[in-house]
């Protein structure tokens, strides 16, 4: 099997699963229970929180554990909007956000909020100047992803951070689900108030994730109940999930330290090789995240190509996996100014630190063969 769909999900690291299993079976007490067994579970939770905080350079109290990226994004966007609507009801985001940001913003429009969806350039990158121009007196939130999940384009969050610093009343949320562990983002410096991270994108488990909430940022919780997660997300803590996330964050931080250069090299090799294929159009900009390449095939039905590769045990994906059942054009590629056909026919190859050059070579060979084979039968 050659797995090149790492932006959809990654293979959980065996030691992450082991951590989960061990803490689920040995420390199953509710951390809120006051007996000593509950105390041990609570201590375990505290240490996991502390480890993650240390690794990403923030305070333990600034971390809210969630069930993943979708919940983290929803908590950030709806949480800020509902809490701070008395100061204004205007939100700025981009036209290339992940559905968990886009749909959350659209849902708020139904409640009377106004949302500006900024256009992007041909590379899928929003300009910080446009963000600056879109700011009004009523703006309370800016939400811009760090790395685009379909194309791998990197958004200028550092520049936007500087802009937001000039507006003390505006919160800045960054969807860092695809960037985390691959493209560094310093959360300890001021300017970013919220950031979403997902466990299963970094060899952790599904159902784990976190929202970074900068000290002093208040939000209206999605889930009310107990006072867990500093009263920002009620519900008995998923201790084994959090412990497994702490392990995944540590491992991905180590991998980034040791293998980021290798990942960039493999990415470049794949990019240059795809450039040599006349049938293929590359939708990923030259300067992008090191793990995603999006290409358009000559045919309107990219899933055929996915299935041909499937049969050879090579896994890639069409658009973002969350919505791969819809046979429509990618809004992200349309926003980049590509025509409908190109936007309908895209597939995504996504790598991880464990991807080898050999696997990429085999994929390229299979792709070329598939193209030759399909050329005869498809238009």
């Amino acid at each position, binding site marked *: 099997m050659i797995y090149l769909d790492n932006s959809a999900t990654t293979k959980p690291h065996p030691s992450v699963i082991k951590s989960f299993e*061990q*803490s689920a079976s040995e420390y199953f007490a509710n951390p809120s229970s006051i007996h000593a067994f509950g*105390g041990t579970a609570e*201590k375990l939770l505290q240490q*996991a929180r502390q*480890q993650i905080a240390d690794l990403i350079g923030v*305070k333990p109290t600034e971390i809210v554990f969630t069930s993943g990226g979708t919940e983290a994004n929803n908590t950030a966007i709806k949480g800020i909007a509902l809490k701070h609507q008395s100061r204004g009801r205007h939100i700025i985001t981009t036209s290339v956000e992940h559905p968990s940001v886009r749909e959350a913003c659209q849902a708020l429009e139904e409640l009377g909020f106004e949302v500006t969806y900024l256009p992007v350039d041909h590379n899928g990158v929003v300009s910080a100047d446009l963000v600056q121009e879109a700011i009004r007196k009523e703006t309370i939130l800016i939400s811009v992803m760090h790395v685009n999940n379909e194309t791998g384009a990197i958004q200028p969050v550092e520049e936007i951070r500087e802009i937001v610093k000039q507006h003390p009343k505006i919160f800045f949320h960054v969807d860092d689900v695809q960037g985390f562990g691959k493209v560094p983002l310093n959360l300890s410096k001021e300017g970013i108030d919220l950031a979403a991270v997902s466990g299963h994108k970094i060899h952790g488990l599904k159902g784990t994730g976190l929202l970074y909430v900068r000290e002093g940022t208040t939000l209206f919780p999605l889930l009310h109940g107990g006072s867990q997660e500093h009263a920002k997300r009620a519900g008995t803590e998923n201790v084994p999930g959090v412990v497994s996330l702490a*392990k995944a964050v540590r491992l991905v931080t180590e991998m980034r330290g040791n293998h980021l250069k290798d990942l960039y090299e493999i990415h470049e090799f794949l990019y240059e090789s795809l450039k040599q294929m006349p049938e293929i159009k590359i939708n990923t900009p030259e300067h992008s995240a090191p793990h995603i390449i999006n290409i358009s095939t000559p045919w309107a039905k990219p899933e055929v190509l996915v299935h041909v590769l499937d049969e050879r045990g090579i896994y890639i994906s069409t658009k973002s996996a969350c919505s791969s059942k819809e046979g429509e054009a990618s809004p992200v590629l349309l926003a980049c100014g590509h025509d409908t056909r190109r936007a309908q026919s895209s597939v995504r190859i996504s790598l991880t630190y464990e991807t080898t050059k050999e696997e990429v070579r085999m994929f390229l060979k299979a792709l070329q063969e598939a193209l030759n084979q399909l050329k005869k039968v498809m238009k």
Partner: protein
Amino acid sequence: MKYNHIMVRYSEIALKGGNRKMFILKLQDNIRDRLKSFPGIKVQRTQGRLFIFLNGHDPEPIMNKCQTIFGIHSMSPAVKLESNLETIKQTALEALVSASEVETFKVVVKRIDKTFPHRSQEMNQILGGYLLKQTEGYTVDVHRPDLEIRVEIRNEATYMTSYVVQGAKGLPAGTSGKSLLLLSGGIDSPVAGYLAMKRGVQLEAIHFHSPPFTSDRAKQKVFDLADVLSEYGTKVKIHVVPFTKIQQTIFREMPENYAMTIMRRIMLRISEQVCRNQDILSMITGESLGQVASQTMHSMNTINEVTNYPILRPLVAMDKHDIIEISRTIGTYDISIRPYEDCCTVFVPKSPKTRPRRDKTLQFESQYDFSSLIDEAVEGIETVIRTGRDSNTDEFTDLF
């Protein structure tokens, strides 16, 4: 600009007389200890400064690590170069053009090496003129420059720095000897410990534990607080005193409104014994005048009667609000507010005496002999050493 050193300026130590060297050696030790995890780092002393040789490491994370070391006034990433005019000019030019978002600059030259042929003032003009000639678009601003290029021509070499990071000030940990901190788990006592450390105190701590009235979580809280404090100095030894029997006896045998006063007196008696056993010369409490019944003038007078060891009270004249500010800054606040009972909150009399009297207290105490209970408590002390956050992980190591 590739920095290869960090220049460390120390504040108050410079004013010391004959003992100055002791202070500087201690600071050098503390910096070395803090930077253990960075291979190849060297800490060197020169006249009036310390230099950290970076051995290829980035200056930022190292300065961050040193940010909590008392005795450091400020730090600057520095380039060490030969003391010759051409090299100095070239490096200054490199520093200017490599800095981002700079329109105005200023040159400040200090000539410690009097054999260097150009005087400080003259050097300012030479360098400033050279930089203006070699570049375009920069102007000199001596009041609020975007970039201040500082050149120190010292006897052994010349150092160039361009920005200053403030240090923690104070005196190096350990230069004022040891003191025993009465650490409860509340907001105040860790702040008192921190302020004492800032004056060079090396901490040991004592904590009164009353199971089952206080839980293991309350004990863990104190360990976590000690971990945070140890980041500002060295490891913290905690003496955990089994206090249940004494507390129960006090509340059974003594009048309710004097129980709190008598409990505090016994705490001090036990603390003094620990001091004697550990060769410690003073105690630290988080008392703040008037904050609660045990911290009124009358209470202090009556409680303090049992010991003639100095009790340092760094918070005595501070408002709660300011204490909370410090605890937030140093990172103890979030731990302190964990809602577990400690020995001071678990047996709270309905109306503790705010004006206890020495004579009355003595009279009540004489009705019961606490001495064997006190000896028993001291015998039963459990001593734990906390070295920072890594002191925790043994139990769950495999999981992370």
